């Protein structure tokens, strides 16, 4: 699909750096342009090659990226993609991910400036994942998968270099987590017993999408004894009802936790008769904590929840989300009895873009 953007972007400035690859990397690091890992120097030919893999022209403006409001041109996105190690084929995915974080409800500025350690979890759904080798299998959040590593990193470098996401400037996380380097993966289409994520989100089957959700980390749980889907779901509930989860006081903002079922768990849950929608409904109904354990703890003082929750008794069960569709449910990973969930950051909503 042809897309037009405002052609008002200024060309990126050119810098001349001479020396060895290590010296060039030193220079980029000293300037604050990298995440601390080595980069591919974004020479003009490499940047041009990157842009040619996307459908948009160099001066096209994707948007303004808060908190420091750098103008994200296609050229500057390509520079960060080269630095991150992307091959040009990945560039349309990088562009879609950037467009997703620029959707206003994602709240990219506050994700950078919060102490809460929010980073985008980037989920690719659809056939492009197979085409590009975006990994959804064994060690799905781990290292060694080039597309995953570099697409997520390109997004983070863009947030650093155009949004000001550096700890010297706007990044204020108390801890943060490695998703601040990169966190990108695909749904495991072969192992998924249900319709794909992007269909669940309302997109046509024949497109591929990028979904972003701002999360505070990854929490893995094991269920290796129970062999029924019901048993897996019950263990998931106990994992998601720990203390200190900020979502229990921020339902009104509409943030999305990401639940990633390992294939074995997903297949057992499906075999127990649960549809994708049923799983989200189960989480909504059961992932709840008693008011007596929620109030006056965590971020209770700055709570943003439905007004009717105020004044409820201590035994009122507070849900993590107030709408099952706030839950992003994904099937990914390899063999084994493990699943994971990413607690949502508070003041954000998920965003999805079709990969063009």
């Amino acid at each position, binding site marked *: 699909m042809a897309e037009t953007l405002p052609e008002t972007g200024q060309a990126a400035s050119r810098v001349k750096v001479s020396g060895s690859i290590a010296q060039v990397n030193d220079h980029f690091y000293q300037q604050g342009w990298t995440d601390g890992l080595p980069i591919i120097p974004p020479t003009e030919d490499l940047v041009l090659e990157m842009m040619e893999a996307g459908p948009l022209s160099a001066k096209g403006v994707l948007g303004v990226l808060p908190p420091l409001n750098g103008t994200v041109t296609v050229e500057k996105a390509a520079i960060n993609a080269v630095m991150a190690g992307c091959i040009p084929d990945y560039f349309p995915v990088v562009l879609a991910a950037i467009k997703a974080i620029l959707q206003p409800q994602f709240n990219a500025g506050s994700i950078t400036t919060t102490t809460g350690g929010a980073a985008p979890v980037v989920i690719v759904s659809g056939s492009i994942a197979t085409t590009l080798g975006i990994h959804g299998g064994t060690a799905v959040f781990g290292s060694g998968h080039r597309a995953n590593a570099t697409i997520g990193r390109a997004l983070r470098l863009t947030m650093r270099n155009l949004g000001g996401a550096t700890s010297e*400037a706007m990044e204020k996380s108390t801890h943060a987590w490695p998703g601040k380097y990169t966190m990108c993966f695909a749904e495991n289409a072969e192992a998924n017993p249900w319709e794909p994520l992007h269909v669940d989100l309302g997109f046509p089957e024949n497109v591929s999408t990028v979904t972003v959700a701002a999360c505070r980390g990854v929490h893995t749980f094991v269920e290796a004894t129970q062999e029924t889907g019901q048993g897996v779901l019950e263990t998931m509930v106990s994992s998601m009802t720990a203390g200190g989860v900020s979502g229990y006081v921020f339902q009104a903002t509409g943030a999305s936790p990401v639940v990633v079922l390992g294939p074995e768990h997903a297949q057992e849950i499906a075999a127990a008769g649960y549809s994708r929608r049923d799983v989200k409904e189960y989480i909504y109904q059961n992932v709840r904590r008693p008011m007596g354990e929620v109030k006056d703890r965590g971020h209770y003082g700055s709570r943003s929840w439905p007004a009717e929750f105020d004044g409820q008794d201590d035994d009122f069960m507070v849900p993590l989300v107030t709408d099952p569709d706030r839950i992003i449910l994904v099937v990914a990973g390899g063999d084994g009895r493990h699943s994971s969930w990413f607690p949502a950051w508070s003041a954000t909503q998920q965003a999805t873009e079709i990969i063009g």
Partner: protein
Amino acid sequence: MPAVTVITSAFTRAAELRAKALGLPEHPVVVINHPIASKTGEQIKGLAQDSIQSIIDGLTSTNGRRNG
């Protein structure tokens, strides 16, 4: 509309940079001690009382009014 930003000390540098990015480098900022998330309602009222003159000064300053 006149405006002033109230932040805690952990965000001083971030507020300066954000004001600059918005083209308002002289935007008045009132800094209170970090943290506030753990304070009681009464303590917050106390902090507000302590800051109120600075906030009024910011709102009535040339730079505060210029924001509108």
